[in-house]
């Protein structure tokens, strides 16, 4: 028997299928989806108006989704690294293996986001908001899977990789906002709003917050940086600008990880 068609479509599909099957069948994946659904559903039960519902869901999402995306991706990567080494020693391209892994992980996370966040919003009668939230949720998931995959590829040591991922989560969801608020208060007499469009580019979690609030037009909760963005670009271009930043947050970690993955020694 000869090895047929080294780059034929079906073989490539099977690796992707293998990953997605493996992830979706996992206990943690099912547990996460159920838990997310229950939490979001609970928040929505106690929300009496749209803005309250969106903000409640958004805050939960900001807290949970980056953490889960970061941790699950790294844990999964490290737990399957040996098997991946075997795959890489086969006549398949490394780019393709990396891409399959990324795509499977992202799709799995997006799938649980839709089941756990969008579906309860629909059920509770927030359909337009659910659609917008899902779109931004897709990006949010893709961002943190990409960041985590990049870190895992760069850090051969599992403990160092998971530690880095924990620090990043802390930085994006807690530390960055605290520092930003402090800076804004401290420099309130200076024209700092000029720098806001650049400053928010540093934090994909903020991008998610601003894009969600801008697109659902809940201005009251936009906060300082959101308000500045809206003032600068207007609502429509503000949303576009933030979406652009988020796409960079997917693309850059994805490409850095890919670059390293292609030339590293296994």
């Amino acid at each position, binding site marked *: 028997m000869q090895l047929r068609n080294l780059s034929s479509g079906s073989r490539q599909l*099977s690796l992707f299928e293998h990953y997605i099957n493996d992830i979706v069948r996992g206990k943690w994946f099912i547990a996460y989806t159920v838990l997310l659904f229950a939490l979001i559903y609970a928040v929505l039960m106690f929300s009496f108006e749209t803005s309250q519902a969106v903000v409640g869901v958004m805050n939960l999402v900001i807290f949970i989704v980056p953490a889960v995306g970061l941790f699950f991706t790294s844990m999964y990567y490290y737990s399957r690294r040996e*098997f991946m080494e075997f795959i890489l020693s086969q006549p398949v391209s490394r780019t393709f293996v990396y891409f399959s892994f990324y795509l499977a992980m992202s799709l799995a996370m997006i799938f649980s986001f839709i089941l756990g966040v969008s579906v309860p919003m629909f059920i509770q009668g927030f359909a337009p908001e659910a659609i917008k939230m899902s779109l931004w949720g897709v990006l949010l998931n893709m961002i943190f899977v990409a960041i985590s995959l990049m870190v895992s590829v760069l850090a051969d040591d599992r403990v160092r990789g998971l530690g880095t991922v924990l620090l990043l989560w802390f930085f994006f969801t807690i530390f960055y906002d605290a520092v930003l608020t402090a800076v804004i208060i401290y420099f309130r007499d200076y024209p700092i709003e000029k720098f806001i469009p650049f400053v928010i580019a540093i934090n994909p979690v903020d991008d998610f917050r601003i894009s969600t609030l801008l697109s659902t037009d809940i201005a009251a909760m936009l906060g300082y940086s959101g308000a500045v963005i809206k003032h600068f670009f207007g609502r429509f271009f503000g949303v576009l600008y933030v979406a652009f930043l988020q796409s960079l947050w997917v693309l850059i970690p994805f490409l850095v990880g890919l670059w390293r993955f292609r030339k590293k020694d296994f």
Partner: protein
Amino acid sequence: MMAGNRLPLYAIEIRNLHKWYGRNHVLRGVNLTIAHGEYVAILGPNGAGKTTLMKSIIGMARVQKGKIRVMDADVKSDIRKARSFMGIVHQENNLDIYLSVMENLMIYGYMLDLTKGEARKKAEELLEFMEIEKHLWNEKVENLSGGTKRKLMIARALLSEPPIVIMDEPTTGLDPSIRRILWDRLLSLKQKGKTLLLTTHYMEEAHYLSDRVVFMHGGRIIEDGPPDALIKKHLPPYALEISPPIEPGGRPHIYTGNSLIIYLRNPSEIEPPEGVSRFLLRRTTLEDAFLYLTGSRL
């Protein structure tokens, strides 16, 4: 693949290979050629560079200098083609431990573009060939013994029917009876014309399986030849282990801990002196030759 039935000169050809991990110069100019159908064992102490050499051949470690050809494919420029000639058993277990025995082979079969039916048939053949009992076929890999995992890794390496099989320490950590079974299986592959390159720490295994052994030490190949010829080339046929050490009297010898091994042409050259705690006469082995050449344990 190849034009007609003409085979390239060598199954594997390695020229002046150098590999650095950071500042660590791990392969220092390795030259090695392996003929079609030849069984070659690489022997060497921990850290000699055996795994690195294997990983270079399969293109998993990028080498900075030198050339590797596998059949008619250059590993640097045509790695996919080169890999399509090789079945690989890595030193570490890299099965998917969350899948069953059968699933591990099936997944790989799909990667090779086999249909479900073909993959299943092939998998069953190989599981039988490797003597993995039927009741284990649907068992999860994480519940298998070390020996069965190893058999499964070999089965998987054979699934694509590669002409060349590469194995990094295939029997390390296995009990003697499983090791015997594996040897038997590997020798029966020889009848099918396969080429085998393996590493091992067991000189007995190297002697039993291979046409040629290669000694590696400090990133270099220090000896290369058929096992018996290699022993003969460096040492006389008898080894006398004696403790406490005596004066070797100009004969080839090595010190190991507080005993001495002296190599003799003639089994009765030395009479047991008084007051020795150990006096053991035996045949000279590959391990002796290696110890003599390097002063290191395998």
